């Protein structure tokens, strides 16, 4: 008999997973139907059967830092076929939520972002910052004349908030989280014999990322889902709209500060077209994802927790307030357009500031885990 491993269940971990949407995890009786029906699980050491018992026994070490938890895309084929209603797909989703929190720095933000009791606080932070800022520059009123949002909130001031957020806050906080995540994942993969590569070689890992990106962009994993294949299109719309808006924001940043050409821009401007198409895609994608979450699959499968819903609302809110601001500007309704813009800025702030702590962090964690899976040769590079 090989050296046996000490096992010490952590009951509080079980309770937290239950609170994060994995409330059914104790129902699993280990038949492994889930691992059999999972369309995207690797053949060797397939998930989520083993993750389920680890969750039942409160074995945090086996779950947090386990790449398989991130390879799961919550198709919920497993949950649909589960004879006991244990919803493995949702349990893994809860494990991911827990993991995001676990790697978060500063840890207090990691705690309050997923905590439904503090939503007002998260919103209050940008509201207060913006109000104080507007008040300081004497702009705390609806400007007269043609609607130009820069008249209300000068772009420079906006960027004084968002540029540090993007280039200091996110890299710093998320960087720490990512570092913790990567070292932990590698250590555990080694311990469980999922990889033979002893060290984490950065150039090789970057190659793995490159070979993973097409899979992500094409949503290959999503398209393999059967129960939740409806999510394929909305998720793609949202991802690409974010990419589009990222491009747009950078272009306009260049336009403003280098080309000295402030907005608003013509609707025929190709960048503006991209912006509007992305906004529509974000709106439609967000709406469809909400509808998808609300769809009845029986047994509350895939309904999601606060953690999931906060991101959905944020995404949809971004689309509504962004698109709304533009439409109201064109319709010339200053009394609503300016507050709408304010709200939009608040949402954008939330998106940026809470990125490493919210569900949106999966954008990075899952990408890294999928890349690591290829790096570790658990999955082949396509």
């Amino acid at each position: 008999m090989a050296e046996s491993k000490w096992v010490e269940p952590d009951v509080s971990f079980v309770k937290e997973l239950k609170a994060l949407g994995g409330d059914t995890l104790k129902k699993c009786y280990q038949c492994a139907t889930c691992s059999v029906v999972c369309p995207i699980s690797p053949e060797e050491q397939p998930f989520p059967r083993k993750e389920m018992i680890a969750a039942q026994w409160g074995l945090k070490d086996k779950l947090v830092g386990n790449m398989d938890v991130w390879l799961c895309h919550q198709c919920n084929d497993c949950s649909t076929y589960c004879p006991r209603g244990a919803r493995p797909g949702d349990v893994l989703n809860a494990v991911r939520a827990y993991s995001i929190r676990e790697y978060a720095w500063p840890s207090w933000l990691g705690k309050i972002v997923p905590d439904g009791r503090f939503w007002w606080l998260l919103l209050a932070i940008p509201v207060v910052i913006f109000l104080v800022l507007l008040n300081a520059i004497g702009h705390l009123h609806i400007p007269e004349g043609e609607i130009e949002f820069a008249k209300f909130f000068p772009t420079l001031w906006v960027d004084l908030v968002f540029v540090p957020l993007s280039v200091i806050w996110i890299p710093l906080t998320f960087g720490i989280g990512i570092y913790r995540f990567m070292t932990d994942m590698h250590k555990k993969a080694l311990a469980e014999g999922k990889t033979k590569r002893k060290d984490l070689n950065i150039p090789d890992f970057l190659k793995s990322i490159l070979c993973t990106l097409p899979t992500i962009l094409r949503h290959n994993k999503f398209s393999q889902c059967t129960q939740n294949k409806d999510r394929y299109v909305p998720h793609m719309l949202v991802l690409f709209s974010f990419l589009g808006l990222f491009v747009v924001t950078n272009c306009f940043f260049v336009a403003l500060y280098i080309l000295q050409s402030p907005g608003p821009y013509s609707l025929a401007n190709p960048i503006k077209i991209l912006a509007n198409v992305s906004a529509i895609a974000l709106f439609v994608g967000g709406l469809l994802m909400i509808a998808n979450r609300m769809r009845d699959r029986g047994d509350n499968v895939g309904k999601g927790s606060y953690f999931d819903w906060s991101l959905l609302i944020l995404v949809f809110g971004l689309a509504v307030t962004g698109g709304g601001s533009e439409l109201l500007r064109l319709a010339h309704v200053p009394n609503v357009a300016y507050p709408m813009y304010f709200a939009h800025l608040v949402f954008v702030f939330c998106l940026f500031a809470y990125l490493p702590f919210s569900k949106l962090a999966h954008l990075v964690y899952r990408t890294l885990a999928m890349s690591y899976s290829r790096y570790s040769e658990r999955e082949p590079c396509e």
Partner: protein
Amino acid sequence: MEKKLGVYICKGCGIAEALDMDRLEKVVPPKIEVRKTHPILCSPEGVELIKQDIANEGVNTVVIAACSRRVLYDVFDFGPNVVQRVNLREGVVWSHKPNEENMIGEEGGPQVDELIQEMAEDYLRMGMAEAEKVQRPEPYQLPEPINKRILVLGGGVAGLSAALEAAKTGYEAMVIEKEAEVGGFAAKLRKQTPWTYPYEDAQEPVIQQIIKEAEAHPKIEIRTNTEVARIAGQPGDYGVTFKDAGTKSVWDVMSKEEEAAILEKLAEEGQAAGAREPSPDEPHTILSTNPDAEKFGAVVLATGWKPWELKEEAEEAPEAAEGEGAEEAKKEEAKEGEGEEPAVEEPTYEHLGFGKFPDVITNVALEEMAGEGKIICPSTGKPATSVAFIQCPGQGTDEDFPYAAAITSMVALKQAKYVREDNADAKAYIFYQHMRTLGQTEYFYKSAQQDEGIFLTKGDVVSVSENGNGSLVLEAKDTLLGGDIKVAVDLVVLATGMVPTTKDDPVMNLAYRQGPGFRDLELFDGYPDSNFICFPYETRRTGIYAAGCGRRAMSIQESRVDAAGAALKAIQCIESANRGVSVHPRSGDMTFPDFFFQRCTQCKRCTEECPFGALDDDEKGTPLPNPTRCRRCGTCMGACPERIIGFADYNIDSIGSAIKAMGVPEEEEKPRVLVLACENDAYPAFDQAALMGLTYSPFIRVIPVRCLGSVNVVWIKDALSKGVDGVLAIGCKYGDDYQCHFAKGSELFSIRADKIGEALVSLALEKERVQQVQIAIDECDKIPGIIQDFMATIEEVGPNPFKGF
């Protein structure tokens, strides 16, 4: 009454197409005047034809050559007249296809297969011969008026419930309990496993309510501090002597040895034990009758179980409590020529630390602890915070602990919940190989699973050892967690089973010649059943019905249901005895073994071999039949070397005559094989094979027998000496997973067959000519192969040299 045979041949169901009916009818000897063929004998017209002959022609023995005796027995029921069935349909025409090479018949006349025709003619001859020898049976009447009171041994859940069920049906019941209080182990429980919706939580024990109800019932008498000294007599007429628990009585049933010594002494004194008036302080043999004994009609055995105990030393020395039955059975086995089984070593579970660490306890100890208060570690007296339940002893087996049945899974779940309710921070681990939560109790498993502090995994527990800091370490391999794991615990609970009280103790104290307890215990793991699957509640002693954990480890609720079954079975037995018919498995059979005592040589083989202890004997060894204890299997008839035992409708002569009526051609190419088929499994399998269109050799002649145990070797000798080439006995499986309806019949035959093999060799006949095959009722597909194999053997050994003599 003089016999008048009527022979009726049916032409339906393909019989007339396959056979030359005129030739067949010619088999009927001229002295039988009433002989008829009918196109469809089972039609109202056909039945009416027979009835007319009974009424007008005085026919009293009806030979029906049509279909198997297993079908249409209700149609061909002619009251007090004997009915003999000749199986032409399943036995001949459905199971044999004509072969072009064997066709005979005159031009223009019917063309039939000669071999099939011979078969049908043989069967008809055999049927008529048998019919001449059988009589309509008369039911047995008990000499004394029947007593319908039911004695219940054991005042636990099963016993009290059985008494209540019997009382509610209108029968009087008496419950005997050796402890000072009734209630049994159920009264010590903290809670019982759930038995009502939603089946999620352990429930308040129901025992107090049962006690109250039983104590209040006017038809129930409860005696505590009481034991049975002896149960004498037979169903419908038991005489039971009671005594204070723990005391000795002159009426205590002695061991066989003690009794033999006394009998010998009496013989020297020239006195018959039964006839003499024994002095009050002298132990009584089973031959004396206690005039003060209380009368009962049937017994419910509900003495339940004992907790499994670690045997200090695994010595084989038979202890006093070993049970007379077991010893006797062993001796008998040795006598029968079978080697004694190697002694089964009692497991010690050393690897689990039992007996070594005070904090490794059994589930019974934990339940007692929980019933009295909080769950603590015996070594420290501190509350247990981390408890491991081990369901399977491991070490290469995935079986649960012995005598666990399905109950220990439920108990572990219940006790894990105790651990959690006593201490919110406590952890309970369950290591199982099987989680047996049957039926609705699956909800209980589900609810235990929901508890965050209960951790379940399949796994093989390798060891329990000390951790150094006072706690224990449990190591397990092949767990669901992947790989080998170890957990630190402070209390380990072994899911040991419920050992039936009958295993080591002759609880019944029967004043039977075969001993005070149940026999053949090794075959039944110490349980008293006669056939657990097919005949629940029935023990190996007719009139005694087991209920509750003495029959199988079970829950309280199951015991209650079980008790109802046993009580009803006891009532069925009493009422059957009252009508003079067999209770089971041949329910309603009016026959019983008849002894021609003048020729008895007191060899005691019938007494010894009866699987149900129905026969006692007197001081000389002459059998004393107890007809209501009898199951009518005929094992005694098969055993008797003097051939003086028989039944009205089934005896040495009736079957012997049938065998003698078999035609044995002298041609070598027409061998003959006699098949003796047990009517419980083998004969139905033949019928079923025919129904499925399976075919087999036309050289065999099948005779159904009640049980292979009833086969007397004289039949085999008769067959072989008249030139039959081989005898094939097909019966039920015996041994560990026996399926014999009479528990030991097919096994006894195998012993007899061995002996006849030796006798054959001395007659220069090959041993292979007599064989036994085991078959189950659903194995009809094997019939052609079995016959083919045996025919091949016969071909190999060649024709019987006695042919033609």
